[in-house]
């Protein structure tokens, strides 16, 4: 009996203590996972939102790579610097998990991510990782005390993450053919795209209503535009002519009051004095774009009269100064009123002076057939075979211009694309970005597992995870469409340069036109064919485990997060 009791005690002890150790290890993993998720969501909520080096608009639907710009968390992790790197699919496929959750995730097109060996801390754009190579990451996590790597790295290294649950259809960052809203300063001269838009909308049969004052607008643009303004500033006669032309434009488009300085646009009425509901046709509440443009130009002209070059020879009179101040105030008033009231009026640029970023129109793809479009797929007429869904908005925009951007790195203007925009609209009733929703519709999960995948013999030689071609800066016509790298794989800074796996590729050069992008060598280099230094120690490592073996991942934690549909940034 005593033997039996002792055997049970010993066996129980032998079984219990490993469980206790595993529990503490799991607890450690959970602490680390929680910290990583805090970091993830910090990046997610405050991601870089600059659109430099982005193809924001294109001639036709299906040609703008920006439509693939990430909104969902897992796509953000692939596109931006989130300190999470995609695990090579060859390795991810060897990992088992409870309920085959990982296998199902991969089957559905998902991806496993592992924490970057060098957490990125000094920027939110990929380019910083290269420019600041010496100081971009912590190799030690000691807060700068330089005491070297520690145990935490090994604990975090064993974690893999994934986002599970269905993502919702996201809003588009811009209309693919028109990166609206356009912005400009108030005051400013008439831009080429603005006078072009004025011409396009001046016809009496314009579906949204004709713009008045084309003749006057043409005269103003002929006198002063962004290309000629610098040559005009010291010429009193030219400046005076500019003021007169702008006054004529305002007189033709706005309600004015006569002042000693000339006709002055009346400022917008204080909304607090107007009883809602405000009629859509009330130009005081919903100012038309021509009024905004005309007052902006007059303010520019009148303020130019006060410029420092003329001040030396023909200083502005008190009357001219007062006139400049009054017209400037009116222009700002109309521009800010216009920007605040209707995000679907695309006639005039939003004022950069109004320092908010939240007047974006809501746009989404229309993924479904409708009586107007039995085939929801739009086939791009550029010979590439590209396709796209059409676009729906909260309300069909009015008075939209044509794209003013350039195409590809040759800086050729985007061809006139009014027809493309006209053809781009889907069934308005399919718009649902503003619909009511249940909380669970917006709930997804970040799941964290622990698995020692670095034990595999090919942990650093396995080719990198495939990259969604839509995230590359190249279009179906083979053109590099931005000055960002054509391919910017999130692991790129860790890629081996060749089969010797002893060196790294040269960093990207931002702003450069890349060559040889269709060669095998380029693709091997930029898509991680030779694997990557996935522990960041700058030496090639191989684990003891053959690639034929399978590993089982232990679930560490699950975190529910809000699945946003609209691009946003919380503070920056």
């Amino acid at each position, binding site marked *: 009996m005593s033997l039996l009791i002792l055997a049970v005690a010993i066996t129980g002890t032998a079984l219990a203590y490993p469980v206790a150790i595993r529990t503490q290890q799991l*607890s450690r993993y959970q602490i680390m996972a929680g*910290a990583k998720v805090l*970091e993830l969501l910090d990046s997610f909520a405050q991601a870089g939102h600059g659109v430099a080096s982005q193809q924001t608009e294109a001639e036709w639907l299906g040609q703008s790579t920006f439509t693939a710009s990430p909104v969902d968390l897992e796509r953000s992790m692939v596109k931006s610097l989130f300190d999470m790197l995609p695990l090579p699919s060859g390795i991810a496929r060897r990992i088992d998990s409870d309920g085959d959750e990982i296998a199902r995730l991969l089957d559905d097109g998902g991806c496993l991510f592992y924490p970057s060996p060098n957490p990125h801390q000094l920027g939110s754009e990929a380019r910083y990782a290269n420019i600041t190579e010496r100081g971009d990451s912590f190799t030690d996590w000691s807060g700068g005390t330089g005491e070297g790597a520690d145990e935490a790295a090994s604990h975090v290294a064993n974690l893999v993450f994934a986002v599970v649950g269905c993502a919702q259809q996201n809003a588009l960052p811009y209309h693919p053919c028109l990166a609206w809203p356009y912005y400009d*300063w108030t005051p400013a001269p008439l831009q080429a795209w603005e006078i072009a838009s004025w011409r396009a909308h001046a016809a009496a049969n314009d579906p949204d209503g004709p713009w008045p004052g084309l003749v006057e607008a043409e005269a103003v643009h002929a006198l002063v535009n962004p290309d000629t303004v610098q040559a005009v500033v010291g010429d009193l006669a030219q400046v005076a002519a500019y003021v007169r032309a702008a006054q004529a434009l305002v007189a033709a488009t706005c309600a004015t009051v006569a002042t000693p300085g000339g006709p002055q646009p009346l400022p917008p009425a204080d909304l607090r004095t107007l009883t809602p509901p405000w009629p859509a046709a009330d130009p005081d509440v919903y100012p038309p774009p021509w009024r905004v443009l005309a007052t902006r130009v007059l303010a520019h002209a009148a*303020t130019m009269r*006060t*410029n420092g070059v003329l001040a030396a020879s023909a200083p502005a009179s008190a009357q001219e100064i007062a006139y400049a101040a009054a017209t400037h105030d009116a222009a700002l008033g109309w521009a800010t009123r216009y920007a605040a009231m209707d995000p679907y009026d695309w006639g005039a640029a939003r004022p950069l*002076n109004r*320092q908010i970023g939240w007047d974006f129109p809501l746009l989404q793809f229309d993924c479904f057939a409708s009586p107007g479009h039995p085939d929801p797929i739009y086939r791009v007429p550029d010979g590439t075979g590209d396709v796209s869904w059409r676009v729906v908005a909260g309300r069909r925009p009015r008075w939209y211009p044509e794209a003013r951007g350039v195409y590809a790195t040759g800086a050729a203007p985007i061809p006139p694309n009014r027809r493309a925009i006209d053809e781009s609209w889907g069934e308005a009733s399919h718009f649902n970005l503003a619909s009511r929703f249940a909380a669970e519709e917006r709930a997804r999960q970040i799941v964290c597992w622990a698995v020692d995948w670095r034990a595999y013999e090919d942990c650093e030689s396995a080719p990198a995870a495939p990259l969604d071609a839509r995230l590359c800066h190249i279009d179906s016509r083979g053109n590099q469409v931005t000055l960002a790298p054509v391919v910017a794989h999130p692991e790129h800074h860790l890629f081996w340069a060749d089969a010797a796996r002893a060196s790294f590729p040269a960093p990207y050069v931002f702003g450069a036109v890349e060559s040889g992008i269709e060669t095998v060598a380029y693709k091997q280099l930029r898509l991680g064919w030779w694997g990557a230094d996935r522990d960041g120690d700058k030496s090639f490592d191989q684990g003891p485990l053959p690639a034929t073996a399978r590993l089982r991942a232990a679930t560490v934690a699950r975190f529910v997060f809000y699945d946003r549909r609209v691009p946003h940034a919380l503070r920056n």
Partner: protein
Amino acid sequence: MRRAHTLIELLIALALGTLLAAAAWSAVRAASQAITVVTRLSIQNRLLRAGAHAALDDLDTWSSYDDPTDAARQPLRAPGEPFQPMALPDGDPRRWDDLDLALDADQSDARCWYRGAGVISNGWSAGSGREYGDYALHGRIDHPDAARRWSARMQRDIVDRLGFYALFELMPANTVFSWFDADGFVPAQFHATDGYTERDRLYQPFVWSEARDEPRELALLSCLSAASVTTAATFRQPGDDPSHRWFSNWATDKWRLDGVRGCVSVITPMPLRPATWPALAIDLNRWAGCGRFWAIANVTVVDPTTAERISLHLRTHTTTLLGARRQRHRDAGWARAGQPTLDDGT
């Protein structure tokens, strides 16, 4: 009569007993080692959790930068530092407005609109300047119309009195950081690009073109640069003035961009712990740079017996400096709702 044990039986019993004792001893040893491991892991985990809680608490309250309950631990309340109270008496010429001292950058309010020229600050030719017009007519620091001096005063006073980081934290996203002085020009601090990390130069040479001096927002001002809040002695040497200086990727001294990692504020929990106990250290780091805000904490546990070192790296959203200022009572301690804070006038 009972038969005595034979010698063989005795030997077997002894052998079994020895085996049993050895097994029991092995079990005890294994159990002891396991207990040691579990206990060590448990202590480390608890320390990590405690450290994480303390770090997150400090990230929320900024207590390691400014302890509202201890006047001796308020190094950042001096003039020019981020926790300087901004309570100015009525009639003080430094007030943003004669009637209203509220920190308000609401863009529906015309006082807060940017009224300068968009493409250039002062002009392309030295001497004359203002080639596109005298935009100071529309708003400047001493404009007779209070609504037209509001924004200029607010920006000037925040950066003068609280520093670069505070300027970015207190003003809304997308703010154009520029204003006109009484002479009608944008002051050098908001215009001149004399060199990277020059003291009192909000504007730095731009990455892609040093000569550019257009009005900028956070993204361009902080391109490959960072403005920090720090109490670290390294950056508080005579003449340092870290609240009015950038860390830049192109600097070669301690103001180099990666130097911002040394701007730590340190918490040392358990100051009275025995030397044999694991040590817990927390450092915190805050800066605005590279187009965004950063709040980082590192929790480190070091076991003095094994020298094992475990760190937890935290980066998260926290209370802003604006929020932290409004957590603090204007006079002392924490502010309750309705009580005056560091941002409230007298």
